[in-house]
């Protein structure tokens, strides 16, 4: 039983991080219908910038986090302005290819700036273990990850419901032309979406680095799991990201422990294909009805 609890907590924590990683993805898709294959690098860059600010420059950790988030925002805006703006109207595939190439270019940039040697995990994250229910020892950094993710998601949800910018983003996602007619600057919204994705990536990256026990280039391979999450949840649904992330996180932990590691690696993708056949738009995605 304690094993089950341990796996559940770990699964939730991993799921929380996945959801954060997927959030950026979904934000961009919702606003601009672009699939951002470089999202994984946003995570990595965020983690490294925070490490740099915290350790190399010696800034206290709240400031370092702000620097990281700022870097993420800047990255998102730069990518959107310089690259994606030029590709408006081009085929879907060209845009996908550009994000893939961007991923490679950013990887090179990270490698250039920080090198391949893994850096230690952020020290400001609580370490050690917390004892729940007696003999279940859970790593404190995982609980912290869940807490941070919850805060971020609540913030995002409030943002979309209450703030003007959030409502504007939802309007653009719904119907670009109508939003333009209302006077909403679609360009601004696009930039905003990318900036938010960069920021979410930065936070996610720091969480991932702390859970990972180190800041290194292979954080990126974690990002592959983002796809099953967004498909399960629905490519354009923030709630779906949360639910999808939790489900996939839990599923992977359970299969890893009760079956074997190989099954746990394949399972999320089998789920992905199954969902596509049964419920293609995911649990919470908007069903597209085609009109000829």
């Amino acid at each position, binding site marked *: 039983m304690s094993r089950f609890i341990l796996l559940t907590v770990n699964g939730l924590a991993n799921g929380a991080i996945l959801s954060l990683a997927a959030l950026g993805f979904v934000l961009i898709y919702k606003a601009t219908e672009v*699939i951002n294959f470089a999202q994984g690098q946003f995570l990595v860059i965020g983690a490294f910038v925070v490490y740099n600010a915290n350790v190399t420059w010696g800034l206290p950790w709240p400031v370092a986090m702000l620097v990281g988030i700022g870097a993420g925002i800047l990255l998102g805006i730069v990518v959107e302005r310089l*690259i994606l703006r*030029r*590709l408006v109207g*081009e*085929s*879907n*595939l*060209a845009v*996908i*290819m*550009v994000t*893939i*190439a*961007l*991923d*490679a*270019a*950013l*990887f*090179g*940039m990270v*490698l*250039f700036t920080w*090198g391949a040697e893994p850096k230690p995990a952020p020290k400001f994250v609580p370490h050690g273990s917390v004892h729940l229910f007696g003999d279940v020892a859970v790593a404190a950094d995982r609980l912290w990850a869940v807490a941070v993710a919850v805060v971020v998601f609540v913030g995002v949800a409030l943002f979309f419901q209450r703030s003007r910018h959030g409502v504007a983003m939802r309007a653009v996602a719904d119907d670009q032309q109508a939003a333009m007619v209302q006077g909403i600057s679609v360009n601004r919204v696009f930039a905003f979406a990318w900036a938010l994705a960069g920021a979410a990536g930065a936070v996610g990256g720091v969480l991932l680095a702390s859970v990972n026990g180190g800041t290194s280039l292979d954080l990126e391979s974690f990002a*592959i799991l983002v*796809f*099953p999450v*967004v*498909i399960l949840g629905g*490519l354009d649904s923030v709630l779906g990201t949360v639910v999808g992330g939790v489900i996939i996180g839990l599923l992977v932990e359970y299969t890893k422990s009760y079956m074997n590691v*190989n099954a746990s*690696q*394949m399972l999320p*993708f*089998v789920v*992905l*294909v199954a969902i*596509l*056949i049964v419920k*293609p*738009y995911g649990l919470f995605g908007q069903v597209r009805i*085609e009109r*000829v």
Partner: protein
Amino acid sequence: MATATGVYNTTYRRDFALRHTKAEYARLALLLVVAVVLPFRLDHYWLGYLDLILLSSIAAVGLMILTGYTGLISLATAGFLGVGAYTTANITTRLHWPMPIGVLGGTLMAAALGAVFGLPALRVKGLYLAISTFAAQAIFNNRFRDWRWLTNGQFSVSANTPKIGSHALNSDFRWYWVLVVITALVVWGGVNLFRTGLGRALIAIRDQDIAAEVIGVDVGRYKVMAFAIACGLAGFAGALQAHYRNIVTWERYDFDTSFLLIAMIIVGGLGSISGAVYGAAFMTWVPAYITRIGQGIQARSSGGTPLIIEKLPAIQLGLFGVVIVVFLLFEPRGLARLWQRTKDYFRIWPFRY
């Protein structure tokens, strides 16, 4: 350079002929001469790259048919390369059947699996389909790495060096002749495909699949068929590559290779078979040039700047991504379009349009 300056066809045959003017035939003859002379002029290293380009072209043509002409995005091509490779390796090494049977087996197995993995295309479209192929690639990855039966428990399977008559294909030079003929046939087949009803049906599906359904094209069947053709070609290329390299390891059939193939057809220009070849050449040669530039820098700065040596891999990786991004910003419709523009320039000269 002279292409036809207008459309004037008096018979159906002339309408869908592949070449319209004598000058175009002359260009084709020139290409033939270059193809024959090239292997004698290139050194062993670049010849190896040329063989690689030819192999990639076969897979790229398949992917072009699927993605460029039918509009179905597939990120799983490397997986099917692997299917072809493992199948032929197992057939030739464990069953001891001759190589042509192995290659045929590889092609058919890949086509069959392609049809199976193409079934989601009946339910989802566009980016969702792309992601489902991404999942297929992940599943292939996992199976290639962990399914020990496939490799007889070893880390890799070997595939034998094929023989034609008494000549063993054991050098890049000899492989070149075989590959150039095969690639030419595949390209020609691809171009011809789009003169047939099947080809037109595929284009119709890309452009307006609902309208195609309305006029009687069996969209579902043709989508699956497109997957089968494309994956079969990928399996064919993979099987040939297995015999070229003599050893099959799973690292070759990873996401990177799938992305590379997609890059080939996009940079080459979607919707053009020759674009697949241009793209294959570009995407194989650019990393090689970048590597050479890097080595040149390294050689010139030896003993001087260790910084450069440390940073070189990063620069090369980054540069590769930057080159593609810049290229796509300038010409999102690829090399084929660039070539088309060049031809048009000369055709219309001295007018501007």
